[in-house]
């Protein structure tokens, strides 16, 4: 035990257990990027397996990959592979695990996907009901009609 502990902490491995039971062995320095996990480790030093109840294995795998590879280039391409639902679940995972870089990257990505779309499209994505009366909506559109130019087709 003592010999194990004397090894450099960066080579120490930790196991993360996703909500669906999938196990991931990661290096300590990778796991520490997730501040939630870091807090867990701080609280219980000898822990070897940490449960991640809110995140599916599939998404945890993506998150771990992100932490390992993140740089400007990777981040720019990262979000393109995922559909809106995955982005949202990854965002919830990043938020729960407290990984600010990933959270920022995902928020930017989601904002980018809705930014030039019509209100109808945005309502579909967020599953929001339009509770404006037709008059109210017409008034808003008229007041800011310049902002409605150049909208992407849905």
């Amino acid at each position, binding site marked *: 035990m003592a010999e194990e502990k004397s090894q450099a902490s960066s080579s120490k491995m930790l196991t993360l257990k996703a*909500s669906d039971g999938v196990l991931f062995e990661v290096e300590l320095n990778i796991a520490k990027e997730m501040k939630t996990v870091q807090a867990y480790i701080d609280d219980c030093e000898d822990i070897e397996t940490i449960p991640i109840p809110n995140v599916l294995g599939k998404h945890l795998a993506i998150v771990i990959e992100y932490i390992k590879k993140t740089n400007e280039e990777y981040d720019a391409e990262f979000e393109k592979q995922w559909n809106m639902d995955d982005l*949202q679940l990854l965002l919830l995972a990043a938020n729960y695990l407290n990984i600010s870089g990933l959270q920022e990257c995902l928020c*930017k990505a989601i904002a980018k996907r*809705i*930014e030039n779309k019509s209100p109808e499209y945005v309502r579909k994505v967020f599953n*929001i*009901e339009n509770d404006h009366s037709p008059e109210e909506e017409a008034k808003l559109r008229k007041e800011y009609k310049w902002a409605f130019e150049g909208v992407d087709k849905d």
Partner: protein
Amino acid sequence: MNCVGQSSELGSSLSIVESVENVVFGGDVRCCIQASPPRGNGSRNTSPMGRVGSRNTSPSRQKVVKTKPRGLDEETHATFGKVVHADVQMEDNIWAMLPEDLLHEILARVPPFLIFRLRSVCKRWNLLLQDSSFLKFHSSVPSHGPCVLSFCKNSVIPQCSVYSLPLKTWYRMCFTFLPHWAIWLIGSSGGLVCFSGCEGPTFYILVCNPLTQTWRKLPCMHFNQQRQLIMVVDRSDQSFKVIATNDICSDKSFPTEIYDSKEDRWSVHQRMPASNLCSSKMAYCDSRLYFETLSPLGLMMYRLDINCWEHIPAKFPRSLLDGYLVAGTQKRLFLVGRIGLYSTLQSIKIWELDHAKILWVEISRMPPKYFRSLLRLSAERFECFGLDNLICFTSYNQGKGLLFDVDKKIWSWIGGSAFQSYNNQACFYEPRYQSY
């Protein structure tokens, strides 16, 4: 737990979400839209599908149910239609689970212009997107990116368009909130735009935020005339300053005056010890204001920290005409000018000031094809302004804008017709919601 969406109001759906946050939901929460929130037509499907205890992994469940009122496009077909796992709490709609603070984080990254469009999504968003603390949060997120503001005051109505470089789109923002006397565009900084004009015999300056459509008239200067002006915003300090130097029409020099928005007053300082300004432009960077002068030759620099003028004897490049000073990031200062008028070798070059050696170093030259396209006639005038190592050229008659990225060394055109008028004025503009 209750199904999200039992109430038609998103507000109450959200309160349900908040209480659910601590519940394990880890299963794959995509489900067929069997229980979408009511949309005013169609009944709610309260199928137990997805509740604890039911397991359904049949691929046939991947079809989207037609209870959605609008036809779904391909994108949502791909989105909804995944396998459902059991023994986890199911949400009918994963997006309704999004915590409020994450929604704010997303919306804060939507470019400022497009926020207006999102106000018509629903009443809750309409309120949120006008809320001052949300707008403040939006302003604190890194800038959306530079825009070019093109202003033209023909007769009564100001024609103003803003070109967003990141979105590559022109927006005809409404500037009718400005008083009629504001006809000269001074410049823009930190999301604010500065105009001046004469109301009757009196010269006035105003500062506005085009997004919030608010404006503020500044008190008169001690020597109140149309003078060379520049406005700079200090975002860390939540304030702005306007610096006034010489008379614009003649070489008459006045004591330099500085307006500080925190004190709402002008203070009077040293007169610029130079005459014969040889350029209509000045540049501000790193708390210093730079002017070109002929006598003494070089640059006059006003230091805001110690409130005095210094001379920088940087000799101008040979055969330089029309020299524009443009500020870059941090301490970078550029000189942009035409050389070789009346010669076949005429072109526009860009130099950068080497502060240590006090000399101008050539860093780029406009490629001949761009030069010929920008300035059809050899003696045509052009305008030049910059922001953060981007330099924009506009020419009066061609109605085009040409951009040069100093770092990437890339030249590109700005499309669209907004530069067409001969009395068009333009500057860079970074839209932000914050006012000062």
